[in-house]
């Protein structure tokens, strides 16, 4: 859908002025710590908010309540042993995390996954994008006060995709499926048919979801004009993923880097033009439709063949001295891994470029001037997962 159509519903919500009309605060400022135990912060995240009445005057995020030393642990273990830890970064999207890490190591060691593995990677990554965006919409609605129902719909669909992941990798959430130069196991019998069925039925669920939500008056009132982000600030602040595209910046790493075999697929990149919560919500719904397009083609075209590069070594894997930075378009944004090898079994430096952490850079800019209730919605639209924010 072109950008103009996204913004077509009427905007009936005026952003409140940043201070009281005469330009000065008329009362005492109140300091509130939202979190780390707060139902709306999607985990253990804290925001120190300074309030002027209902309006936010200042907001400082506080991190680290889930800082579990992923990078330090990875530097003390072998390359392959970090793979299951990447599952636990963004625990909604273990497949894309695996892929980003595998891609970086493949750059470092010069491995090339075979054709079939590339297709499997695209299929699992796009299924992951469906899971992530569906659940995000559910949680966003939960933050707006629609307790339970949208989230239950979302989790119902999530379970269907998790069943596929479980059949493929043996685990619902923590798949640990990709390997350097390919994938761990071939598709089980009947898996493709199951996946095709899920993909076939998904648009029906999306139609239903959108019919209930997108035109809903309350949803529009709560999201349109809330948390607007200017495009220049978004680029300067390193915002990536759906949040960047909601500001109208056409930058999708699947199109720019053409990693994997994304250049073989036709899909469009939805763009917003206001950069507010509604655009971010809409972009995700539209992206799911594009993902389904990719999935349909990939499931039809997937060839037979080996699934691991024959040059890939599992035991005694030692890349040459040097470094590599690999990145993919994760469901939350640019997920990158920066590795420095000193020629030993362990990486000398292992760094995760976490999209949801960097996307929070502009949280204060988006929230100042809005009410406390809007802060919850704005945070929900950023789409954070604390495992990745704090690592």
């Amino acid at each position: 859908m072109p950008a103009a159509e996204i913004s077509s519903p009427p905007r009936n919500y005026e952003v409140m002025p940043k201070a009281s009309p005469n330009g000065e605060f008329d009362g005492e400022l109140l300091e509130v710590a939202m979190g780390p135990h707060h139902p709306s912060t999607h985990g253990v995240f804290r925001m120190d908010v300074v309030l002027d009445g209902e309006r936010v005057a200042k907001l400082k995020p506080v991190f680290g309540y889930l800082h579990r030393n992923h990078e330090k642990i990875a530097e003390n273990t072998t390359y392959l042993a970090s793979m299951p830890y990447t599952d636990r970064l963004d625990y909604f999207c273990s497949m894309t995390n695996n892929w980003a890490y595998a891609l970086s190591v493949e750059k470092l060691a010069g491995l090339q996954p075979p054709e079939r593995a590339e297709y499997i990677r695209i299929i699992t990554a796009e299924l992951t994008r469906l899971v992530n965006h569906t659940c995000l919409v559910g949680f966003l609605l939960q933050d707006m006060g629609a307790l339970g129902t949208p989230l239950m719909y979302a989790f119902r669909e999530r379970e269907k995709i998790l069943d596929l992941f479980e059949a493929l990798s043996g685990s619902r959430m923590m798949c640990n499926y990709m390997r350097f130069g390919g994938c761990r196991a071939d598709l089980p019998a009947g898996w493709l048919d199951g996946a095709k069925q899920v993909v076939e039925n998904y648009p029906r669920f999306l139609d239903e979801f959108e019919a209930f939500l997108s035109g809903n008056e309350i949803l529009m009132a709560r999201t349109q004009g809330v948390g607007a982000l200017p495009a220049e600030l978004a680029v300067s602040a390193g915002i990536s993923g759906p949040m960047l595209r909601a500001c109208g910046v056409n930058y999708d790493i699947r199109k720019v880097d053409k990693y994997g075999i994304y250049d073989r697929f036709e899909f469009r990149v939805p763009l917003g033009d206001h950069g507010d919560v509604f655009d971010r919500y809409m972009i995700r719904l539209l992206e799911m439709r594009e993902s389904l397009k990719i999935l349909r083609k990939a499931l039809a075209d997937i060839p037979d063949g080996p699934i691991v590069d024959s040059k890939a070594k599992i035991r005694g894997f030692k890349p040459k001295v040097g470094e590599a930075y690999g990145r993919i378009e994760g469901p939350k944004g640019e997920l990158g891994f920066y590795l420095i090898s000193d020629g030993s079994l362990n990486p000398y430096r292992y760094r995760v470029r976490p999209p949801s952490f960097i996307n929070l850079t502009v949280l204060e800019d988006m929230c100042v001037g809005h009410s406390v209730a809007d802060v919850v919605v704005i945070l929900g639209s950023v789409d954070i997962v604390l495992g990745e924010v704090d690592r």
Partner: protein
Amino acid sequence: METLEQIKDRIAAAIPGARLEIIPNDTPANQRSLLVDREHAFEVARLLRDDAVLRLDYLSNATGVDWLDTSIKEKVKVKKVVEGVEKEVDEMVERKKAGYLEAVYHLYSIAHRHGPVILRIRTDNRTDKTRLPSLTPVWRSAEFQEREIYDLYGIIFDGHPDLRRILMWDGFQDYPMRKDYAEPDDYEYEPTPHDEVLEKAQPHSR
């Protein structure tokens, strides 16, 4: 995109006096990086962002690296007078190389869709001269990432608007991502003891 040599020449022409060095990378990734001196790093960063050809407007990733003090043992041929005759003798010489902390920035251009250009800045040593210029005024994206580097590596960024610990608590005194960090010993108990973990838990067992 221009090659790294061209970028280097471009910077050298615009900012006289900037000491630049290309760090090679032999892996198949072939991502070489540009080492910039501390004094000119901020100007170089601003040039990279504003230059019409480069337009590196997107700082994707900023991170720290800790390089320990190393000593390299080398065989050196030394001329020595042995028993009245001058001879060439092999001698082991130990050279100490001071360690340093390094900040690495990965830059991309959204406007021109190219990248990455990798920028490195190094401190003098790991103990008392650990100050670097902050690039947050150039790219807002560095704000939290530089705070994280400060928290985990102890690089102090001059010009950062709000340099506090970000992941660990405020009273914490160590820099845990440094290679010589000693973690607190709280391995009193290991339900499935094995190898090093057992060794670690052993002192607490009596």
